[in-house]
Structure formats: C-alpha cells, structure tokens
C-alpha cells in the first residue's frame, strides 16, 4: 500500500478502516538465503537493502521481541556525520546522504529534519581539534561551519555567555545534521523489506548456532531450527551474548546510557546542541519535548536503567549552558544497553566462522548509522567483501594496531 495525502483523505472519509498491516506476520520457513538476527534498525535496514539493492529477498529477520525494541526505539534521534577519522567519516557521510533521500525511497515519513548540530567549544585546544575535525569532514565531502562566540550569541541568545564556568568560545556546526523520528525508521525499513518479500519474524529468539566444521549453517530459535546460507548477527546491545553462542569473545563491553525527555514545550531549540565542557546534548522533538542525554553511567550493565549521579550530572550540564531550562520538567528517563567497543567504533565484518557475519559495537552512535550500516552490511553479505567506506570496521583491527579511536581514550570502553 503506497502512502500519500490522497490515501489519507480516502481512508479518512471511510473511517480509517482500510489500512493494512505495515508488515506481515509470517511463520518462519525452514530455510533462507540469509537470516538476520535482530530486528532493530540495522537489521531491518540490512534486509531492506539486501532486497532492494541486491535482489536478495529470501531473507528472514529474526527478532526476539518486537521490532525496533532495541536502541532504534530508545535513542536521542540525532543524525550527523561530524567525525574525524578516515575509518569513520566517509561511512557516516554515506549514512547522512542515505538519510537525505530515505523517506522518498521507502515511502514513509520518518520526519528527517536537518535542523543542524552544533558542538560548542570552550578552549583554544578544543577549537584546534574541532577545526581539524571540520576540515576532515570537508575532505570526506561533508559540510562543516565554524561559528565564533559572537555569531552564536546572535543565533542562540539563550545560551549562557556571560556567567559560565566554561565560557562558550565558539562552535562547530554541521548544518546537515539533525534529528529523525526514530521509531519510524524501524517501521519504514520493515515495511520496505516486507513489501519486497523479506520475512520479519517477531517473538523469535535465537538460542544457538548450527556450526559444523567451522561453517555456520543456520540457527536454533525459540520457534525451531532455521537453516541459512548466511547468518548475520545484528544485535548491538546483546552482541556478546549472541556471539558467545558461537563461541566468540568480542572487543565489546555492555554499558548503560541514559536518555531523557522533558514535558512538551513550544519550540525553543532550533537544532541539536552539544556542550563541550560537560556531558550534555539536547534537541527538541516535533512534539515539543527536549530530548537530551549525557555520559554513560560507566559500569558494565545489561539492566537497561541507570542511576542518579548521571541523571544529576546531565541536568547540571544542561543548566550550565542554557539556564532557561530550569523550569522545564524531566518527564521520563530510560536506559539503553550499548555495545561499547574498545575504540568507540563499530564492526561490520565476517567472523572466523564461514557463513557467520557480525555487525555491532555501535557504542551510542548506532542510530545515525542505521542506513549506512544496513547498506554496508548488505554489501558485505551479498558480495563477501567490505563496502569501500567500511573497510576499517574490522574485528581484527586491534590485533593489527589499527584502532579507530575518535576520542583518543584507548581500550577502555566506558571512556568512549
């Protein structure tokens, strides 16, 4: 069913009774060409691009719960491609370009809003680093803009310019950055994949792998065994648990990241703003809530919830840069489990087991990567070679000494 204003008009006049399920609810078949484990944003995007770009449609996406229940369902909705390193920046720029055409591509309005992202800076050293990064973005074909404090004061008068512990000295904009209605991304990809024949199977948990002689031939699931020529893990947040079933140890720790939303407010923030001297980033949703977050809680956790010190730390960061939000109220906080990798960058790679592939380690940056992750993972699955923009996202990069460490924090995941 193609969506359009006309369709809405027609359905509206007939009691909205003609709408069809956005995706089917099929029974799993016994065998597929590709089984994707994980019905999150990345898994669904992978299925979509496998079908659309490579014509591979005999594909199942197996989801333990409901699709989109992982981090695509609980993030702070930001898209951007403001990375420094060659291992990352071209990949995220591809992702941003895919976002830019996504809605027309899958005929679903995910409310992609290029409202801009601004990284505030507070010291000369930080400015040097941001200029370096902005220039790297340009070299990769992205956009960046340096704004000095006077420009920011004119554009964002509500920031604290006069009484700040860490004065705002400028900022790096990416005007093409912005926000997306996150759930709609999962649903849009699901709808696009489903309409091309992909089976999206919810409430189907993978409980083991069928591996013989170093070759993966399928998976065991809560709904029976399913054979597959290729099995693609795509379960960021649960990567270590799933990979352990294939006997793999990963360069990943699971950490909790909290996120927050305020009550709805009339528009106050033009785009995404990040604080460079504390842990705080914020945007405003179309519904009016300020959506914000900060640092990881910092300890290994699968509990999907955090604790008060970080809640307060994040609020302090918010009040430090925009003291006009003091009377806005925190409505809801939640915690998501992050695949924190050892250098803060992800993996899209084969594994040492033939037929078994791995996509994970997205840290807290997976949402913006969703289209490119699907695009590049589909490429890897279809061609058995890494996509050109994902060549560094390999599992063996630590053994080789080729880290992609944007923050320069080394092999301590909670610092990325």
């Amino acid at each position, binding site marked *: 069913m193609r969506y359009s204003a006309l369709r809405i008009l027609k359905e509206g006049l007939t009691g909205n009774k003609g709408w069809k399920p956005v995706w089917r609810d099929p029974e799993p078949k016994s065998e597929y060409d590709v089984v994707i484990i994980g019905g999150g944003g990345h898994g669904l995007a992978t299925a979509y691009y496998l079908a659309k770009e490579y014509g591979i449609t005999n594909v199942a996406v197996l989801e333990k719960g409901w699709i989109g229940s992982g981090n695509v369902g609980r993030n702070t909705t930001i898209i951007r491609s403001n990375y420094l390193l060659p291992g990352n920046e071209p990949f995220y720029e591809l992702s941003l370009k895919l976002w830019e055409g996504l809605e027309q591509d899958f005929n679903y309005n995910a409310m992609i809003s290029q409202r801009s992202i601004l990284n505030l800076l507070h010291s000369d050293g930080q400015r040097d680093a941001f200029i370096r990064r902005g220039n790297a973005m340009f070299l990769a074909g992205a956009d960046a803009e340096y704004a000095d404090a006077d420009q920011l004061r004119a554009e964002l008068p509500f920031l604290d310019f006069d009484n700040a512990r860490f004065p705002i000295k400028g900022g790096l904009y990416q005007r093409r950055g912005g926000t997306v209605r996150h759930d709609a991304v999962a649903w849009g990809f699901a709808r696009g994949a489903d309409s091309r024949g992909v089976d999206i199977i919810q409430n189907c948990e993978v409980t083991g792998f069928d591996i013989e002689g170093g070759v993966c031939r399928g998976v065991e699931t809560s709904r029976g065994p399913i054979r597959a020529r290729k099995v693609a893990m795509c379960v960021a947040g649960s990567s270590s648990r799933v990979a352990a079933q294939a006997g793999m*140890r990963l360069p990943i720790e699971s950490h909790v990241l909290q996120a927050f939303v305020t009550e709805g407010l009339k528009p106050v923030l033009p785009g995404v703003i990040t604080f460079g001297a504390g842990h705080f980033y914020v945007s405003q949703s179309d519904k009016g809530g300020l959506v914000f977050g900060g640092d990881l809680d910092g300890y290994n956790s699968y509990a999907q919830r955090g604790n008060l010190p970080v809640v307060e730390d994040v609020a302090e960061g918010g009040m430090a840069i925009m003291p006009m939000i003091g009377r806005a109220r925190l409505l809801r906080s939640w915690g998501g489990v992050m695949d924190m990798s050892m250098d803060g960058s992800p993996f899209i790679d084969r594994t040492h087991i033939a037929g078994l592939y791995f996509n994970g380690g997205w840290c807290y940056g997976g949402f913006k990567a969703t289209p490119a992750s699907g695009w590049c993972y589909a490429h890897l699955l279809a061609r058995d070679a890494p996509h050109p923009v994902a060549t560094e996202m390999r599992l063996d990069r630590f053994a080789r000494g080729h880290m992609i460490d944007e923050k320069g924090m080394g092999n301590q995941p909670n610092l990325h």
Partner: protein
Amino acid sequence: MIINHPLLGPRDAAEFVYLGDAALIDRPDWQAKDAAEQFHAYGYLRDNPAGTHQELWYHEQGDRSWLVVTRDTLTHEITDVQIARDVARSRGRSA
C-alpha cells in the same frame, strides 16, 4: 549504587571510578612466546557476561583502594567486595 568497602563500609558508588573486568589484573607475561596474542586478548577481548561480573572499582574520592566487586550486570546486585591487592596476590601476582 552502594559499594560495601571492606575497610570503610558502605560508600556511594559515585565516590568510585570504574575500570572494567577484573581480568585486567591478569596481565600477561611480556616474555611469553605469544605475548602479542596474549596482550591483545588481555587488552581487547571481554567475556562481558549478562550476570555475575567481577570488576575493578577505584575509590578515588576515598582511600584510593582498588576493589574487586562482584556485581550482577542484570540486576546490579553486589554480592562481594574485596581489596584488589588481595585478589591480585591470590591470583599469583607479586612484584
């Protein structure tokens, strides 16, 4: 969270800094034949269990002890706290 420090009693976890898996105590022998592989595994690979996890916390806002805390990563329940130095010795580390 509250960490029951073996010397100081219950302290708020905010006083501590977290490092990670207590396997970081088991630093490999630099002269082993496969030292490169061992250090790679030591530095980069983690069990990352969903459940009981032995982990290193540092009482930075306190007595500067490193502690080995046994904590469930699903519930955050803490079942044991030991001085890391004692653990290190019990695992055969010396000078």
